[in-house]
């Protein structure tokens, strides 16, 4: 497997996603001789996983079955161990597009957190780009580095354990895009400007609170950033179900007799009544002048 390139068969060392149904899934590290317990029974890696194609159905010892999926950053986001609050694919999607990320992009990010966005960025900028990610918490920085290595994407990412507000990203004038998800992004704007290429680049700051956004926008203006835009994106999911409504009996006076019983049809109803707020996204461009 590779987070940046699809492979057909499951190999030792892969991170595979075991899918149980109804959005229930979890990741496993594939290893010779290892076993994984599920509610449907045991999965023996050597017999059931290694050498099998991704997407296969695996019957567990108790008779129930699961699917084994190829990892993607989106599946990883849904299954990764949380060390911090993470960004979900809805926000990640708009961030990726608005920062104009693509193969070859050089990106600076802080904080690394649990690596949710990091994996998505690496996937997008590979094979010719790079991610410089900064995390001020030592254990989190270490865990992230470990995970990138386990997932075999370490050649596309550099983790630095420092405070971006004080010491910046560790690189200068190389980035096409900078992403900030920190408590005080306005303190890092100057460093962000320095990390971005001289010819210009894109910036994004994610903040849950509007007061943070206000201070960040002010800092952006002071540092000469242009095209400053703040938006939020909200996900609405729908449940597809069959519905039945009884047909009313209005009497038998008509000819032909009206149909009675129930009318059945498909519906798409919102999954939750309200859509949740994650944070405000502020985008800007570094001006040439």
């Amino acid at each position, binding site marked *: 497997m590779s987070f*940046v390139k699809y492979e057909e068969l499951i190999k030792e060392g892969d991170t595979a996603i075991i899918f149980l149904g109804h959005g229930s899934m979890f990741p496993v590290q594939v290893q010779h001789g290892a076993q994984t317990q599920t509610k449907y029974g045991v999965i023996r890696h050597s017999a059931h996983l290694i050498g099998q194609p991704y997407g296969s159905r695996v019957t567990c010892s108790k008779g129930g079955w699961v699917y084994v999926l190829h990892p993607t950053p*989106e599946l990883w986001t849904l299954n990764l161990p949380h060390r911090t609050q993470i960004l979900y694919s809805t926000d990640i999607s708009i961030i990726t597009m608005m920062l104009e990320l693509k*193969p070859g992009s050089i990106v600076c990010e802080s904080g690394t957190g649990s690596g949710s966005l990091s994996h998505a960025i690496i996937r997008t900028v590979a094979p010719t780009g790079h991610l410089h990610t900064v995390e001020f918490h030592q254990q989190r920085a270490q865990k992230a580095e470990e995970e990138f290595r386990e997932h075999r994407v370490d050649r596309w990412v550099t983790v630095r354990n420092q405070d971006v507000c004080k010491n910046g990203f560790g690189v200068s004038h190389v980035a096409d895009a900078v992403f900030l998800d920190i408590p005080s992004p306005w303190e890092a704007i100057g460093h962000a400007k320095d990390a971005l290429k001289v010819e210009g680049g894109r910036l994004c700051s994610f903040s849950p609170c509007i007061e943070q956004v206000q201070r960040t926008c002010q800092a952006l203006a002071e540092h000469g950033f242009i095209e400053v835009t703040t938006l939020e*994106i909200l996900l*609405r999911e729908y449940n597809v179900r069959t519905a039945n409504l009884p047909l009313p009996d209005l009497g038998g006076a008509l000819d032909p007799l009206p149909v009675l019983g129930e009318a059945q049809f498909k519906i798409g109803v919102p999954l939750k009544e309200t859509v949740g707020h994650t944070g405000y996204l*502020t985008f800007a461009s570094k001006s040439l002048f």
Partner: protein
Amino acid sequence: MEGTKGEGQPGGGTMANNAEQPRQQDHLVRDGDFVVLKREDVFKAVQVQRRKKVTFEKQWFFLDNVIGHSYGTTFEVSSGGNLQPKKMMEEITSETKEAGIDNRNIVDDGKSQKLTQDDIKALKDKGIKGEEIVQQLIENSTTFRDKTEFAQDKYIKKKKKKYEAVITVVKPSTRILSIMYYAREPGKINYMRYDTLAQMLTLGNIHAGNKMIVMETCAGLVLGAVMERMGGFGSIIQMYPGGGPVRAATTCFGFPKSFFNSLYEFPLGKVNSLLNGTFSSKALPSESKDSISVEENNGVLLDDLQTSPKEMEENIIEVIENNHPQQETMEVISQEPEYKDQKERGNKKDYIQEFQKKQEQQKKRQIEAAALLNERNADGLIIASRYHPTPLALSLLEFVASSRPFVIYCHYKEPLVECYTKLRERGGVINLRLSETWLRNYQVLPDRSHPKLMMSGGGGYLLSGITVANDKQKPESCTVELEKNEEPIAKKQKVEESEDLP
């Protein structure tokens, strides 16, 4: 010019091919580049060509002076239609100006501005700069000093927007082009809002090295977005209805030639034959007339192409779509990039030879595309068209490998509800999700922050999922109700190959 170093090998597969090394002066505008003109929030895509008149926002000019400048440079239109670079002025931080407390005494009688339309026109004709005009308007407004500071701010911003118009030349990207198309020609892209497109690219795990199947009727915008995210690595097979794929928007991205080496196209009309093993490369009736990329344009251009063979040779087609006679529309250039340099008009015999050669080439490409599809191992599927999604999904998913994401866009929700149901019946898909995204933008100013506009419902819907091995399986427990009274599943194409992947 557009010529590339490092032509990659055609076809996808390894990460190493089709690498487009970033050129040293990539940030400078060159003759022939595809750029986007920006004024405030209005965009227009054009190609830089010397001495070619361009109209944009009620002004006309030449782009000659843009060549050699950096992308992101702002210009203003000066005499003779020439563009002059203009440095963005520092916002003059207001010294404590005279201002009022509130608007209780301000009467809007339309008489507070002492300068007349003619006065302003006279100033403009005299060549007075925009900033000066704004200053004059402020000085000649009787109510200006009574306005609150915020109101003064708003007034100045509004006047600047009108009189100090500057044009920025920016590099095309999915971000810019998808925003432009949604604002100006949403009908051309099935009302797909840019955040919806963003979701598709991520949910579909579009990245370098993929083998993608794309079925879109969004003027080539979705194709372009996919190509941008693949960076020239991997391969794309674009399915198309009718005579040929529309790639007007794709051209606006300005991709290097090498990106097109691994872009294939395949007619929808032959999908069934491919599925049941009877595929032949003989031309379909809809394709025989014009096998060159066709610009869809209310049939007008089509007629031109069909009547005159000479017209057919015209490779650079500039189409000005007139949806709103008043409003300026987009200048779109549709072309096959490989033929851009060809300006020679040979005699008729040469022309016929050329045409036949192209026919042969396209036939060859189609066979290659068929072979790629027949491997049934595509890494993903994107559908975004005006057609009902269900038949497209049911047939095109046959070409996708196991454990790969697919995303289906539709302007309306109901067809996707039906598609969801049919996919459940088909089996071999998991994690089906029907969703839409809402977008809300904000004004952020000190003491004046508030949301502006909420965009919901009008941006389209997405049905996404992941393919899995399709054995004779029991359905996912509980939620699937197999209706007995639902119409029988459409004739299922027998898959010749077994579940074993090649």
